[in-house]
């Protein structure tokens, strides 16, 4: 068994709001293997982006705080090292691509300036060499006339092209881990496919491990080796692509899969129910967090928080009744499909 590249243990990130403490990420653990492509799915507010921001240590106090947990990377706990040490990791060894390419680039500096800045920060090169690296990075993401376009400003690029620039910026320092936070959500469908193909190929070429955060199950199916499903700050199910898509075990995953064609409608309903009961320390429901919305909930679900456990021949799931529900879910998915 190879050593994991990145290992997250019992990560908890809380936000203080007027209504109380929001447990955005509440005790999640997972490993990322070298070169692995891990999909993290869940609806808005499930804690997927906060997980990424916590790994990058970009959660800003005083509002947000990483309460406990470790993020082990090359033997170091990223949550315990100094800010200066962390800066060398950020962008250099672990890079991140954000959701909205229209607003993620600084409008008043040229694309080249922003790329060169990153490269010079993490690599020991002079400005001229950095410019060459930047031009290469742009041409790697298939931007025509890369060397000339370095002098253009972000507003002179289309949305898809800007996301290519973001990918180029992310990969320009050859990171070992690339965290892509809904990289195609803001793009139109044809561009989405191109961007995902491009990212897949570049990551595979370089052996970069990718954490793909998305609410789009279709994107995950085409892109990832493994998937973990998040719900209300915790991981409810984890497994290989096949495990999740063909043998889902958690009622929530099943619900997600069943609602794929009417994802938006379903999402609005669920988002509302999460908002309606803001999880504060005091009134956090005992037991399973999905219980209020689960058709299969029993008394046990109300008392005992199900932990993630491995099911023989399948993935891991955080549900007390995974074995019993087996048939019903399979039938239900069959019926939905």
């Amino acid at each position, binding site marked *: 068994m190879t050593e994991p590249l990145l290992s997250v243990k019992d990560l908890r990130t809380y936000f203080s709001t007027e209504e109380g403490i929001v447990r955005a990420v509440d005790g999640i653990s997972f490993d990322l293997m070298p070169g692995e492509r891990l999909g993290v799915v869940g609806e808005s507010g499930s804690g997927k982006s906060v997980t990424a921001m916590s790994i*990058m240590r*970009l959660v800003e106090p*005083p509002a947000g705080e990483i309460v406990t947990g470790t993020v082990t990377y090359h033997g170091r706990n990223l949550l315990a090292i100094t800010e200066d040490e962390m*800066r*060398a*990791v*950020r*962008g*250099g060894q672990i*890079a*991140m691509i*954000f959701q*909205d390419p229209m*607003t*993620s*680039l*600084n*409008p*008043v*500096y*040229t694309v080249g*300036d922003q790329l060169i*800045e*990153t490269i010079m*920060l*993490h690599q020991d090169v002079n400005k001229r060499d950095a410019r060459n690296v930047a031009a290469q990075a742009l041409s790697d993401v298939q931007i025509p006339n890369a060397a000339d376009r370095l*002098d*253009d*400003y972000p*507003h002179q690029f289309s949305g898809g092209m800007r996301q290519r620039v*973001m990918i180029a*910026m992310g990969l320009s320092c050859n990171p070992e881990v690339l965290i892509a936070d809904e990289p195609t959500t803001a793009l139109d469908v044809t561009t989405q496919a191109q961007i995902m193909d491009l990212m897949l190929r570049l990551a595979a070429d370089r052996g970069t491990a990718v954490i793909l955060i998305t609410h789009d199950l279709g994107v995950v199916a085409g892109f990832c080796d493994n998937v973990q499903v998040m719900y209300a700050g915790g991981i409810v199910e984890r497994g290989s692509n096949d495990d999740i898509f063909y043998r889902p075990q958690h009622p929530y995953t099943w619900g997600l899969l069943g609602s794929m064609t009417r994802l938006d409608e379903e999402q609005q309903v669920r988002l509302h129910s999460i908002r309606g009961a803001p999880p504060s320390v005091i009134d956090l429901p005992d037991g399973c967090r999905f219980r209020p919305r689960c058709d299969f909930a029993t008394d046990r679900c109300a008392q005992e928080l199900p932990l993630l456990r491995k099911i023989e021949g399948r993935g891991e799931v955080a549900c007390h009744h995974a074995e019993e529900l087996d048939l019903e879910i399979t039938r239900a998915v069959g019926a939905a499909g």
Partner: protein
Amino acid sequence: MFAYVIRRLVYGAVTLLALSMVVFWLLQKTGASPLDRLKLNPRIQPDYLASLTERYGLDKSGPEQYWIWLKRFVTPREASIGGLPSILAISAGVAYSVLASRFIKSRQFAVRIAKIGAGVLIWGFVLFTVWNRMNIVLDWGDSFRGDGPVFEDITLAAGASFRLGMTALFLAVMIGIPLGIYQATKQYSFFDQLGTTFSFVAFSTPIFIIGVFLQLGLGLYLERWTGVKLFYVAGMTSSSYESFTTLQRAGDILQHLALPAISIAAISLAGYSRFQRASMLEVLHSDYLRTAKAKGLPRRRVILKHALRNAMIPIVTLISLDIASIIGGAIITESIFGWPGVGRLYIDAINAVDYPAIMAVVMAIGAGIVVMNIVADILYGVLDPRVRYE
């Protein structure tokens, strides 16, 4: 850009023309006459009043009076631009501007700065050359109060207002903007709350309160208690100013300038710090700042490079318009501190229904706003590459 500036200047001239018409019309509609006060004086003979009425053209129709004023206003008393050297210098300036805007197209920041910088240098040289050679004496009409062409009055007053206004603005900008930036980066800290409190107190205190308290505290009691006269509470210079050495003069100017400048600056500083704080906070929460942090940039660089330039864009407009308003003088402050600025000139002119003087102040303020708006838009284009003027 050059074509853009010329076009804006033409629009500006049209705006000023419209402004002058509206204000002149409004003045006549008030029904007040410059002779009202004289009429109340029983010793003044009716035929003298009649001669004045004729001299000021008050017997003519409104449009006619306007036309007479306008002709006087736009006709300089003397005008020569200084012969061949001036013409050559202006041609050189125009040639650079036309060629540069036609051939230097790169949008790179350094190139744009160099292009604009060269333009500023060349036009600076042009102005210097022409200024030393030209002989243009504007007139703007004679004051009804009989102190000669109002242009002279307004230049003197504008000089005084400018000295006060620019000093106050300088203080406000140099303190208010860094304060706002610092507050934004330490949002909700003790210092931020302190700054916020100060801003609200300063902003909601009327300037006559601040001014009078400064006069009492730093002007009067400081001298009474310590015996040192640090600040003067009125006027621009001491009466014996002419006999001072250069160093003494500088000191004397500062001693007079300090209190009124601080009064204006305190309020304006509060505004700037609030505005800068808000603008900076907005940028600090933007996606591209998150990107900058995710790249591993040091916090200092994130703030000073990526945040500041974006946050300064709206502030530049604010400063430019503030400079424009300086030309109008600070009416209340100038009254409190006996400062011979445009504000006082304006009040005096209105009280005397002195058409040419009122119009002169209005036109000076109007011209200032027009010019500073153009300057603001140009600066906007320099700071923000998304804005381009073709």
